[in-house]
């Protein structure tokens, strides 16, 4: 089956690159991900409630799935979301732990608790874009182009799926490492979706 990468987004601590082109970001003293959000002029107040992992994945998906590319209004059952990372939701797990470790100051935060699962980022992207196909999230000890390739290709075993938003979305201890790909089957235009290309796009 021929699958191509229609577009990709690389998001790290100092750069946002979409299809090989760096996106200019107005930097401030504030958090980098908030700077990206504001530079992109997105209007989605829920963004500020997200954890950093979801913010990073959400921003990359906004750059991949722009309004002119994807219809954000109508449900789509032919798109799947398959993501992977190394740190799961460790940042949030630690933050939640802080809210419950002191018996004399025991105030578990519901808003932090809801992000103590890494696959919440899939949900944030799906809700924003009305993507109704199956979503999944995998944990790997390290970035693996081969694993990403295999799990993304697996998504196409459901014949109703023609497109997959896939890739690596990792965020821990202020280190952002995201490579998000939008791939399609039987599409003539784009970069071939294979292990070698995934590997090189992540460098």
């Amino acid at each position, binding site marked *: 089956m021929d699958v191509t990468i229609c577009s990709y987004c690389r998001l790290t601590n100092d750069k946002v690159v979409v299809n090989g082109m760096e996106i200019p970001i107005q930097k401030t003293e504030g958090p980098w991900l*908030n700077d990206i959000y504001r530079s992109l002029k997105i209007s989605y*107040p829920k963004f*500020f*409630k997200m954890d950093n992992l979801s913010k990073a994945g959400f921003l990359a998906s906004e750059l991949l799935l722009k309004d002119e590319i994807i219809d954000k209004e109508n449900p789509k059952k032919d798109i799947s979301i398959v993501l992977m990372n190394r740190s799961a939701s460790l940042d949030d797990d630690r933050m939640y732990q802080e809210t419950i470790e002191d018996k004399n100051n025991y*105030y*578990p*935060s*519901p*808003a932090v608790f*809801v992000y103590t699962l890494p696959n919440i980022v899939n949900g944030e992207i799906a809700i924003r874009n009305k993507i109704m196909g199956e979503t999944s999230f995998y944990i790997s000890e390290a970035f693996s182009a081969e694993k990403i390739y295999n799990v993304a290709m697996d998504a196409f075993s459901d014949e109703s799926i023609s497109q997959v938003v896939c890739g690596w979305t990792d965020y821990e201890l202020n280190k952002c490492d995201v490579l998000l790909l939008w791939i399609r089957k039987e599409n003539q235009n784009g970069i071939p979706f294979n292990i070698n290309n995934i590997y090189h796009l992540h460098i």
Partner: protein
Amino acid sequence: MEALILELKKEIIEVLNLEEIKPEDIDENAPLFGEGLGLDSIDALELIVLMEKNYGIKLNNASEGRDIFKSVRVMAEYIEKNRTK
């Protein structure tokens, strides 16, 4: 009461991560849920935690929040009557 309302607005903005909203943007008489700030059920739970953590008010029944969180002013009035810290 007005000082408490302002304090409450600042706390709500902080705990609910209402990044782009300033205290003066919040109408203390407007409903907190359903319109205006667009708060959701997780926000309601955070407000319950805020009441206990900052004012020592423990809501035993989550449905009590329905009346207490009608607006910032209603919330402030409830806090003034029931606060233990």
